């Protein structure tokens, strides 16, 4: 099923190990700063996700890489070459558009063949490669249809095949799953991941769906207000978010304000001292916030860090039970895995102690606007 060969390995003497390098990239529209001086290295063969709320600049960043928007400042390097000022047709990247943008007047075959024809591929070679592209996305045999005869999911796959047959250095995906229904979207997420493994091309995928990013990407770039908040693997971002925005955007976090009192201790608002990893504090002093994920908290003590509180709400949702516990340091959400019968022990009004390990604690700066 290796329908499309892996991206060419670097030639001898070629030093670029990054497929994309963004250096101080900025885009200003009139007086709005859409992208604010971001720098990013994308290693070859990785599946990158640009994740952030709408208006965070992720699509603008993608469009600048594709050549559809001119940066106001900064550099874009593709494979070590500065592509500033080059039109889209001179860049070795291909894009899957959110609206798919299939050519309505051309057959599926001609749609997929469009890029190959521009490179002078003709005859048997053309037919073979278009056939391989359609096979890769599981749609062989639809060559003679027109785009409007296909379902949304099929059109999406054709758009993918049309881009991939050109074997670009990088494939850019602009929220390509946004128009699909939930079930199809889940299917396509796994499908995209499979295809990326198969072809080995670097993918840069823009999305506002954190679950989608975590499912597919091996590197996530979290963007907010035109800046990059944090770059890392899904587990790095989840376990050790560096900003309160990342902690809140990716999953649920309990953030408790406190003051640094030692090189591995923070005193919470109610006077309780908790231990945090030395490296999480990273030389901070003064006011900070400590964070714990809801599933890392235990009902009952027996841990290094403890906090007393009263259960104010509980909700049984099958796989786990969710509690909201009021503590003097603030309200805390707790998920208890229902891994045995009767695990959901506490009821609203119960007074109990929460415990958690210092390893599961992260520290972020106090949010400026809170």
């Amino acid at each position: 099923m290796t329908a499309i060969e892996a991206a060419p390995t670097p030639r001898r003497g070629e030093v670029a190990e990054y497929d994309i390098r963004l250096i101080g990239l900025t885009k200003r529209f009139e007086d709005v700063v859409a992208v604010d001086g971001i720098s990013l290295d994308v290693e070859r063969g990785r599946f990158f996700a640009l994740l952030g709320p709408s208006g965070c600049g992720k699509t603008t960043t993608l469009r600048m890489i594709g050549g559809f928007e001119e940066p106001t400042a900064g550099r874009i390097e593709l494979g070590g070459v500065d592509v500033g000022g080059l039109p889209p047709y001179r860049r070795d990247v291909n894009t899957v558009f959110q609206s798919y943008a299939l050519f309505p007047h051309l057959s599926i075959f001609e749609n997929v063949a469009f890029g190959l024809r521009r490179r002078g591929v003709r005859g048997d070679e053309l037919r073979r490669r278009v056939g391989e592209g359609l096979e890769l996305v599981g749609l062989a045999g639809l060559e003679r249809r027109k785009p409007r005869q296909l379902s949304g999911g099929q059109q999406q796959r054709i758009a993918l095949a049309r881009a991939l047959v050109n074997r670009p250095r990088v494939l850019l995906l602009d929220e390509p799953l946004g128009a699909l229904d939930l079930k199809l979207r889940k299917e396509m997420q796994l499908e995209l991941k499979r295809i990326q493994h198969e072809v080995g091309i670097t993918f840069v995928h823009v999305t506002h769906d954190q679950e989608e990013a975590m499912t597919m990407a091996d590197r996530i770039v979290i963007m907010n207000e035109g800046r990059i908040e944090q770059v890392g693997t899904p587990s790095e971002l989840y376990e050790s978010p560096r900003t309160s925005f990342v902690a809140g955007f990716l999953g649920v976090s309990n953030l408790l304000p406190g003051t640094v009192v030692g090189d591995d201790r923070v005193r919470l608002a109610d006077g309780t001292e908790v231990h945090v990893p030395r490296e999480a504090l990273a030389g901070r002093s003064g006011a900070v916030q400590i964070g714990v994920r809801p599933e890392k908290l235990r009902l009952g003590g027996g841990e290094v860090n403890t906090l007393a509180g009263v259960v104010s709400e509980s909700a049984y949702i099958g796989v786990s039970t969710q509690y909201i516990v009021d503590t003097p340091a603030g309200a805390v959400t707790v998920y208890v895995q229902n891994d045995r019968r009767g695990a959901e022990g506490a009821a609203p009004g119960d007074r109990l102690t929460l415990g958690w390990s210092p390893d599961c604690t992260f520290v972020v700066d106090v949010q400026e606007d809170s």
Partner: protein
Amino acid sequence: MTATTATVELPRRPAAAARAWRLVRRHLLDVYALLALAYLFLPIGVVVAFSFNNPLGRFNFTWQGFTLRNWAHPLDYPGLGSAIQVSLEIAFLSSLVATVLGTMIALALVRYRFRGSGATNLLIFVPMTTPEIVMGASLLTLFLNWRIPQGFGTILIAHVMFNISYVVVTVRARLVGFDRHLEEAAMDLGANELVTFWRVTLPLIAPGILAAALLAFALSIDDFVITYFNAGTTTTFPLFVWGAARVAVPPQINVIGTAIFVIAIAAMLANVLLQSRRARRA
């Protein structure tokens, strides 16, 4: 309205009257439609019928008898053939030039904001709204002042001028709903600006351009007022008919008129058939 009230007041109306009323109500729209169509097509019917007339004198005004002679010799009248040729040449050239220029103007107006684009958007309607008689007279003044001899060239310039407006408006309507991502996708796949235009933009707006060209052709071939002012000694088909009418109305005029009508209807039918076949295949 009054009828419904009457029904309420007289619930036991005789059955025959009720049936008659139902009949009228059911067919009122049909009758109205037939009358409206008759109003539209009667004059054309007369034109067609009199193309088969065998007039006694020079004026084809009263029905004398049926003949196919006029159709056998459609150009058998001095000057008629050359007038038709001039009309066809001007219609072809002016619609071609106006379509090319108008399409480019429409593209510029829809795609770009530039100094004067708002004014151009408004001014493009001026030739459509100015009375033809005013435009014809003004053009003549212009040509006289610039000492440009009237003739084929001035007719062509005048026709291109008023045709451009119609082309711009028609093509612009097609462009407004155009998905710009399609052009970006083409460029993303390696097509430069020119190839993108030929392979993606042009095929997608072609129906609009074709409609604009046909409209321009139709407007040009039967224009009289503006042509009359700027023709010099050149004679187009409408000018010929006008001139001939003072001394004679040969049935050949009806033959040519009928032929143009039939060709137009045939072209329309062909277009409808083509569209429906394409729709069925899709």
